[in-house]
Every structure is written in C-alpha cells, then in structure tokens.
C-alpha cells in the first residue's frame, strides 16, 4: 500500500495549484532542465499546467543504443508525460507516472536534469483486443491507451511528484490526461471524434440499436454497463437496447444476466480469502448489496467492468455532495485497495 501522509499531501496540492495559477499569468522563466531516458521508437509528449506542450522523439539512429531521448522542460512547471509508439490506427499510448516512498502521481516538476532510465513499454496495442471475443490484458476498453500508467520510481530531492486534489489536466483523475480521454471508447480521443454522441457511437456503420457492441469497446453489450449510451446505466434502464420494448419482454435482447437487476448474491462462495473480497464486504456491500448485488434502487455493481468501476469511482470525486463522491475521494490515495475492489467486483 502506498503510505501517504494526508496533511502533507493536501498542502502540496494547494501549493502546486497556486504555483500553476501564478505561472500562467506571469512571464515564464527561461530556465529549463533536461528530462532524459531511453525508450524504443517513441514520441514523448509532456502536457503542462500552463497549457504548454512539449514533445520529442527517441533517437533510433544511434547504433546499439536503447534509443535515448532528451526532453527540455521548464523548471518549476508541473507536467505529465505520455509516450506513443506507432502511428494512426496502430498508435499505442502509454501514460507515465512516478512514485517514491511517499506518493505517486502522473504530475511532476524538477529543478535539475533528471534521468528516468529505460522505460519498458508495451510496444504495441493490446493483442487481446483483436480477438473475438476480446480478451485484453492491459487495455481493457481497447481504446489504444494503456489503462494504468507505467510507474517509475524516482527518489531525488530535485524531482517533485505532485499529487493534485483536482488535476486541471486530468478531470476524472484516471491518470490519463484529458487530451487522451476517449469517452465512448471507440479508439478516438473525444477532441478528434466526430461520432461521439451520435446514433452510431462507434462509427462502425451499425446503428446502436442493432450493434451488439454499441461503443466498440470490445465488450459485447451484455457485459457492458451502458449498452445504448443513453446515459442511463443498464441496471436503472428498463430498456437496455432502446428499442421501446421492456427488457422483461424483449426476446431479441439477451439481457437476463447483464445487469443483475433481479439477481441476488450467491449464498456461498468458494474463493480464497482476498483483499478484494474483504474490502468489497466492508466498503461496498452495505449500500450496494452483498458482493454488489443490490436489491434496491442503489446501483448494482457486481460484475461491472473493472476499468468502468475504477473510472466511475474516481469521477464521483467531482460530486462531493453525493455520498459516493465523499467515499470516492476518501479512496483516492488508496490505489491498491481500489484496484482490489474492482478486481473482485468485476469477477462476480
């Protein structure tokens, strides 16, 4: 578990935000530092608090090298790194995070040159996304962006890892910068996505009503949380495929088991004791039902997709007036526990 000192963390975030505010309105310092490392055939991008963007390529021309790169960044400016291999449809994006004994984050700043060493990326898109059915191992929504950053340990007094309460460049705090967010999971970031919000969300030419995988996330709708993307989660939606026929009477739609609307938890389980099993029992079950099988209007979360669970929990942080928003923000620094919870619930 990450050992995090809360008061210190909060102080850090506030000072970082203040720093961000002041730097955006004043003359930028010309002083820069070099962020170095090696990574094969990759575009290295940095997204920084004042809106500035920096990028470079790793150098494959040096024989027998591991493709060194050198990115010049302003001293004292908080930035986030993203690495991309391949181009177009083959582009594979990996967020980079940093950690030390106290904290972890994708945001950092440095006062001096820093060598982050060799970064061993997955060099291509998750091959599991090409299988039918999809069986991804590191990109669960198959959007070409790795779900979790690769974390690099850097223990250096000049290098500060910045934990935000609200990261201006990562609204939903999923550690993927907003520029690479893909809300309909069609593999195209929102900002470049013409199909987002239309009747054919994934742009595959099949209208959502007839598409077994409306959002092209590699998950057939029967295990997807919001099949018709109507904004109404399936477990609150009496008509999951938007065809005007109540799910209970709709023979064209196999949703008997997709949303646990009428299911209850199995009486007995045969799992080994695990962190996920216990944490779900202590943190989730009282409101969401035993193992997440809700018997009331509160969302059922049993069997929900792992990355959706993580994303939704983190998104709730923006709703502090909501009880789940309160709990979501309490779990923010507890990555391992949250992931254990998502692992367990997604396998119910």
């Amino acid at each position, binding site marked *: *578990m990450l050992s995090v000192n809360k008061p210190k963390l909060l102080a850090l975030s506030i000072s970082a935000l203040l720093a961000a505010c002041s730097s955006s309105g004043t003359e930028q310092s010309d002083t820069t530092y070099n962020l170095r490392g090696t990574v094969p055939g990759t575009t290295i991008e940095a997204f920084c608090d004042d809106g500035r963007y920096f990028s470079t390529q790793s150098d494959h021309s040096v024989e027998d090298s591991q493709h060194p790169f050198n990115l010049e960044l302003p001293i004292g400016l908080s930035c986030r790194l993203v690495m991309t291999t391949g181009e177009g449809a083959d582009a594979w994006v990996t967020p980079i995070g940093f950690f030390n004994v106290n904290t972890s984050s994708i945001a950092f700043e440095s006062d001096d040159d820093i*060598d*982050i*060493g060799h*970064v*061993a990326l997955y060099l291509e898109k998750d091959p*599991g996304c090409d299988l039918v*059915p*999809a*069986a*991804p*191992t*590191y990109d669960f929504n198959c959007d070409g962006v*790795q779900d*979790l950053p*690769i*974390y*690099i*340990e*850097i223990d250096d007094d000049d290098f500060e890892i910045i934990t935000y309460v609200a990261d201006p460049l990562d609204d939903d705090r999923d550690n993927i910068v907003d520029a690479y967010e893909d809300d309909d999971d069609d593999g195209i970031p929102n900002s470049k996505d013409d199909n987002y919000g239309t009747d054919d969300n994934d742009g595959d030419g099949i209208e959502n009503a007839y598409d077994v995988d409306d959002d092209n996330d590699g998950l057939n709708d029967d295990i997807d949380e919001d099949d018709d993307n109507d904004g109404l989660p399936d477990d609150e939606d009496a008509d999951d495929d938007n065809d005007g026929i109540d799910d209970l009477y709709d023979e064209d739609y196999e949703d008997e088991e997709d949303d646990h609307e009428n299911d209850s938890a*199995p*009486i*007995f*389980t*045969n*799992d080994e*004791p695990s*962190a996920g*099993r*216990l*944490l779900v*029992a*202590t*943190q989730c*079950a*009282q*409101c*969401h039902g*035993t193992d997440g099988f*809700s*018997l*009331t*209007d*509160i969302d059922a979360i049993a*069997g929900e*997709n*792992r990355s959706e669970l993580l994303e939704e929990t983190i998104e709730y942080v923006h709703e*502090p*007036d909501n*009880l789940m928003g*309160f*709990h979501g*923000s*309490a*779990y923010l620094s*507890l990555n391992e*526990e949250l992931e254990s919870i998502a*692992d367990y619930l997604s*396998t*119910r």
Partner: protein
Amino acid sequence: MINERRNFLKALSAAPLLSGISLTTQASTGLNQKKVVVVGGGFAGATAARYLRRWSDCEVLLIEPNASYHSCILSNLVLTGDRSLDAITFNYTNLETKFGVKVIEDSVSRVDSANQIIYLSSDTEELNPINYDKLILAPGVAFKYPNWSIDFDTIPHAWKAGPQIEMLKQEIDNLADDDTMVIRVPSGAYRCPPGPYERTCAIADYLDRKGRAVSIKLIDPNDTLSGANVIANVFSGQFGDGNRYPNVEYIAADDIAEISMDKDITLNNGDSFNAQAINYIPDQQAPDIVRFTLHPDSNQAWASVNPLTYASTSGEVVNAANIHVIGDSQATLQPKAGHIANAEAKICADAIIRDFLGMAPYANPMTNSACFTPVNHEEASWISAVYRFDGNQVVTEKVGNSPEANMENYQMMFDWANNLFNDSFG
C-alpha cells in the same frame, strides 16, 4: 535509485472477463471441524454469523436471547408512525435455513476463557458446557444507571428498539398543547452518535404535523452542537429561534441531576421544571459478559481489541485467546452503529477464517460509517466516515456530511437501509 514497477497488469491477465461462477453449494474450505460461537444477534453478530458461513464451512452457533431483532436504524420513524415496527424487525430464519447457522435463543452466563467454554443462562447448574475454537462477543450496549433512581418502565430510554419505542410513542401521542417534553443525550461514547438529535427532529416534526404546540428541551452534557463536527453541521441549524424547530431549546453542557416521581426535572445548574414526556437516554458501556470476561479488574467501559482481527487485547485476564469483540462493545474510535458494526463483523470473520487456514490477517482493513439521518418526514442528510488501520490503530481517513438535507437523501435512506438489512439478516 531508479526502478521500474510494471503495474500488475500481466498478473491480472484476462481474469476480469471470465465471469465468476455462482456457487449454490456449501463452501468447502475444510473447516467443518472448527466451531465459532457468536454471542448477540444484532448487526454485528448476525453479519459475523452470515459471513462466516458464506465464506467457509465452519460450524457457527449464534446465541441471542430474543427471537427477533428490532433495528435501531429507522426506529425513529416508528416513533412518528412513518414506519411500522414490523418493517424494522428481523428474525434469524434466513441465517438458519439459507446459511446453516445454528441459532440458540438464550444468553451466555459465563465464559471460561482458559478452557474455551461458555455456559448458557438456562443451564444454571453448568451441566452443558459449550466449547468453541473462536468466540465472538457482539452483545451491543448495556445501560449505566445514574446515581439517582430511575425506572425505565415509566421513563423510557427507547435506545433499544422494540417495546421501549412503542412506550415512547405512546408518551408522545399523549402530549397536549403547552406540554413540555425532555430528551436527554448520553455523555461518553454511546450507540448511534447522531441518534438523539435525529430523534428530536423526528418528534418535533411529528408534533408540528399533528398541530401540537409542545416545548422540547434537548439536554446535552456534551455540547456537541456547538462544536465543529458533522453532527453539528447537520443538526445545529434545526433548533431554536428562526430555525425549523423554534420550539426546541438546546441546553448544552448540562445534565439531569434528578427526576422525581411526578416528572419534575432538576438540572445540575439548579433549574427545574415539569415535563409531561421524558426520553432519558442513559450513559452506556459494554454489557457485563464482555467486561467481566475480559476486563474484570478495571472499570474499562469497552473492550480493547486488535483492529486487524477484533481479537481481545485484554491484559487483565490470563487467557483471552480466541475471544473477539465486535460492534458497539469494542473500544476503537469507530462510532457505535449498525452500518460499521456490519463492517467490523466481516473483518473479524475474515480474520478467523484466515487463522483457521494458517494465513495472516489482512493487513490493511478499512471500514466506513455511512448513515442517512432524517431531519423531518421528507428530507434527510447523510453523514459518513472512512477508517483504516495505520499499522498500530484505527485512524480516521475522512469524515463528511451532505451539504443539505433533501428529499433524494430521504428516499436513498430506505435503499441503503434495505441493502444493509439484507446484508446482515437476509
């Protein structure tokens, strides 16, 4: 200096997509020779019994003197007639028939901790010792009587639901215009910290709806509503001039010194007045079975436990091994309430199963104490706290409350309570 940590993506593999198989047969953990005795069938005890059987095949014996349990959660709505007592009453049939818990309607008279044996109250000759591998004590709270005489059959505490709630309801229904009602908040740790304030709101709102002009005096030895805390955030703006309940007078940092047979009340500050209805919620401590068994040599009110397992850490008895205390009777800083007692029960059940299997307890257990609390008959607020283990003790990760009371929270209160009831007794 520089290392790389691949997030355990590979280890995860495709497991999340392989749907878990629902097992309807008995768990087979090979623990059918192990026996756990659970004392008390409230939220803590019922949940412990239920989850011990969900997660293992060990033998579970639940000892509870009452055939059914009346939830304290939502019980203030019974006072106002908004919910029936039946709706918050649960029996142990599900635990028996679905989960195979053996339920005995009795109480425990004595624990022989050195020999890991208990005796039932009905077994006055101690002829039928019941052995255990693990003993879970979950008897809730006992009342401490004040140093003046009080009879709860004439002045209800109504702090354990059931007949006492019906008695208090009768008193409230008998109130006439210009009458006075007194509600006393306990000092020290007590069950359901927002409860007395919620109750005051519920009663004031009910009397308003009936058109009764009654003065209510809320007497609080703790002065909670003047402080900076979640209870004050939710309730301090409800009482007194200019607020929703101007007829409620909050009397802080004082206590009842005596109540006469004629319901004349004298406060420590010397003030005295007559009341037509009194709800005296007494100070509380762990029941005798907990204190006499684990803390016989001190006046310690609540049982010391290890928050990883809820095993007793009493240093006062030779052998407290294999005795666990959960729920209201234990002494950690966690509030005494049904929602969090349910969580403590699961940590304890998991730790016991792990111990039987030769595993260490889970090192980072967490709990939370969410609750919805109504401030009138159509609006509620929520209060919550998240707790974790810091390596030594339970610490508070975060505490908060809803910024306002609203109707959405009032509806969600029932959704929350029903899932909680089912997760404990269903």
